[in-house]
């Protein structure tokens, strides 16, 4: 009863037979083998599984893999180019916008999406943009600061 789907992840196309009930988060982790997409709740509350699907920010645990058929996905593994960190990643590393790292991929993609829409966000904008991503470690301070710094760097570039 498997279905064949074709999904492009970080620029590479995968054709896979999947069970209809397979979640997109698990498809990315287990079928494609990209474990940077984390799972913290499977019901859309925590944001650990956040990816970008056809340009939209989504929680991949709320979608089935079959719903991504024919679509393009960006995961955290697709951000750094040839070992050079994306400015958002760099800001998180240098500004300690992460501790255990479990929320980090989702946070970074949420920030990426936010800065794509709004290159010059206020603190309030940043907090709103990240409101769907929970972090249990940092108290968000250094995350918010890292996004501010990333915005600055991206504008310079």
């Amino acid at each position, binding site marked *: 009863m498997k279905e064949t789907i074709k999904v492009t992840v970080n620029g590479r196309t995968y054709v896979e037979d999947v069970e209809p009930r397979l979640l997109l988060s698990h498809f990315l982790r287990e079928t494609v083998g990209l474990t940077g997409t984390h799972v913290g709740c*499977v019901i859309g509350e925590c944001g650990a599984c956040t990816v970008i699907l056809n340009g939209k920010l989504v929680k991949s645990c709320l979608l089935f893999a079959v719903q991504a058929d024919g679509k393009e996905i960006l995961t955290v593994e697709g951000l750094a180019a040839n070992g050079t960190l994306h400015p958002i990643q760099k800001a998180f590393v240098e500004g300690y916008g992460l*501790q255990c*790292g*479990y929320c980090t991929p989702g946070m970074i993609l949420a920030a990426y999406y936010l800065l794509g829409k709004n290159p010059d966000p206020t603190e309030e904008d940043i907090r709103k943009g990240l409101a769907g991503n929970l972090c249990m470690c940092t108290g*968000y*301070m*250094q995350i918010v600061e890292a996004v501010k710094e990333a915005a600055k760097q991206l504008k310079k570039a």
Partner: protein
Amino acid sequence: MAETKYIGKTIPSKEGARHATGRGLYTDDFTLPGMLHAVILRSPHAHARILKVDPQAAREPPGVFTVVTPEEIEKKTHPFKPGRYAAGLKKAIPEYAGAIGKVRYVGEPVAALAARTRGAAEDALELISVEYEPLPAVVDTAEAMRPTAPLLFEELGSNLAWKGSLHYGDVAAAFNQADKVVREHLKIHRYSSTPLEPFACIASFDAASKKLTVWVNAQVPEVIYDALREALGLEDVRVIIPDIGGGFGQKIHLIRKYVVLISLLAIESGRPVKWTEDRSEHMMAAGHSCAQEFDVEAAVKNDGTVLGLKFKEIDDVGGSISTLTIHFTNKLNNLSNTYRTKNIFLEGCSVVTNKCPVIPNRGIGKPGMCFIWERMMDRIAQELDLSPIEVRSINLVQPEEMPYTTPSGNIYDSGDYPALLKRALEKIGYEKLKAEQRREREQGRLLGIGVVIGVEPGGRNAARDMAIFPEMKESPGSGGVNGATIKIEKNGTVTLFLGSPNCGQSHETTTAQVAADILGVDPEHISTSTPFDSDLAPWGVAAANSGNNFHLYDIGAVHGAASRLREKILTLAAHVLNAKSEELAINAGVVQATGSPLKKISFAELGKIAYGNQALMPKGFEAGLQATFYYTFPHGEPNLVPGPEGLVRAQFTFSAGAHVAVVEVDKETGKVHVLRYLIVGDNGAVINPQVVNGQIYGSAAHGISVALGEGFVYNSDGQLLTLTLTDYGKSSTMETPRIEVEHRPSPSPFTTLGQKAAGEGAAIPSPAAIASAVEDALRPLGVRVRELPLSPEAVWKLMQEAVR
């Protein structure tokens, strides 16, 4: 190490790049050949007898390998040895990894199975049939202690599983001499730290060698080691701890049950087995902090001096006896908070209820102790018509008294509490705020300012428990031990093996900074061996993300190992360069004789010699370039074990912080808005400011979220109503305030670099700070805050009651 190039500075996070690129490796990321997937069948009842478990139908589907039922768990495993937190039990009660005979909380594991895929496993789980005889649930401690209450453990004859008391000084005299006795009844609710990554475990058993390897996101390897030996009789165990997605105490204790169950499935099936908990399982069964209730009395002089403190504590410990006293025993760790009171009486009652068992959690019991002190300080101020600042100030331990021995035997290493308080008031602009508050009150705005102070202890000493349970036959151990190994490879690279796992506290970064300064290399060139592997790591009892151990034991061990290795490097280099080792300096991985520019040799060249050229080594030189050091705290005495007076150090270093919360309460909804939150902290000599700040921000945010409503709620049948993070009320970016931090370090005279703890820290005083601020905001209504959480609903009720 004359000057430090890296210690004390913020360097880019060494763990950061792998996490930011999605290359962190967590337990669930691993796959082994032939690996099966496990799921757990859990009790839907809060309290029930298990009449019959029939696994037959679940065994039939082709993908299912193994099912274990209570009967098999009882037959094939042993109960855990009663640990130190069950020491007060009148009668030993066997506790297995799964429920036997009875279930005592919703979510208690009953059976487990392993199948080819997670989907197949979940499908099969529904085929296990269990017949329960539901029993009335006991969810309230007062109800639980009634003689007619249904019993959780018939063997105990009561749900009051433990009661005990201690006293220090002359409490009766203090109360006789008091001008006034101030009384209060206080309560803290159930919450937890809800790490973003749930429990996960992979077990793989090699039947030929009888060696079991587990990959698990456990914070304390020793707990897993002991559990596997006790429950499965296995001695040859390897515990691999990959990146952990947050711990905070949550992954110390109950996780052992699942490691045993998954290991049993692996042994039975002959296949590696993986299990990953889901969020609702985590919420119902991974452990909660303890709901605590306190009857408090303070004997005070008219000037606010607290002569004595008495409190009786009732702990709602849930449906297990294995952590019965954990929240009470930890009261000894900050029993005196920052105050000089000499006469203290405390009594603990641990009551079992049909709720999730309690577990360690950021501060374990210490937020409760700080809450007692800080609520009482405000209450004393009100009753004596003094300012809350005055009352605190008059009772503070003074800097010239350091090191200060508390009545229970803790030794506060260093600190200037009055200065922390003073600076916090200055920085927040206290007087101005007070004036603003007066003005705004006239406009009907409910503004409040809460000022509290608290200590944050660090390090471990299990011997503390002997003061509480003098009947303890076996010493639970004393002090702590942890190790580190550091080596220079043949090619000159430096590798560090830490004795502990890491769940987000930047251990790799901080230890690299210490090693870098001692060895004279760039921290970028130091790599840390991950994951933690008990076969390789030089670990001891303090190898734990618990008790704020890292700053003491890991830093001490890395410092010791790196210093030893430096000696070796200099000995070898001196010989090769024909120089005196005193004339040598190391810089960027090159040993150089001062004054002779040509006399130099790199780590790589030294490595080549040390691992392969005997003729160039000095006589008697131990080949290789590596060193291991196991650290114990050299200032562990006095009071390492309780003497006849019962004095004992519960922990060894004492950070402190003054917290100020400025809040506004919404009159219509009861919602509390945190307008400002400031911490002036003393975490000793800081090794990496951004790391320490991160720990403070995170722990403060958690304490604030707890105070404002995050928590578990059960209904009267013992059903948990908060199974999701949303229902539980975890704060997002929108509710979490900005937190301002200023450091005023008083280096510890006892630790390797003057460092003290930072980790649990701000979670200890922050619930009290919010309570204080909310009460201050509601002062025009005459409201007294006695209870957490201060959810909008709770605050609204307080306002309604006051108006009536």
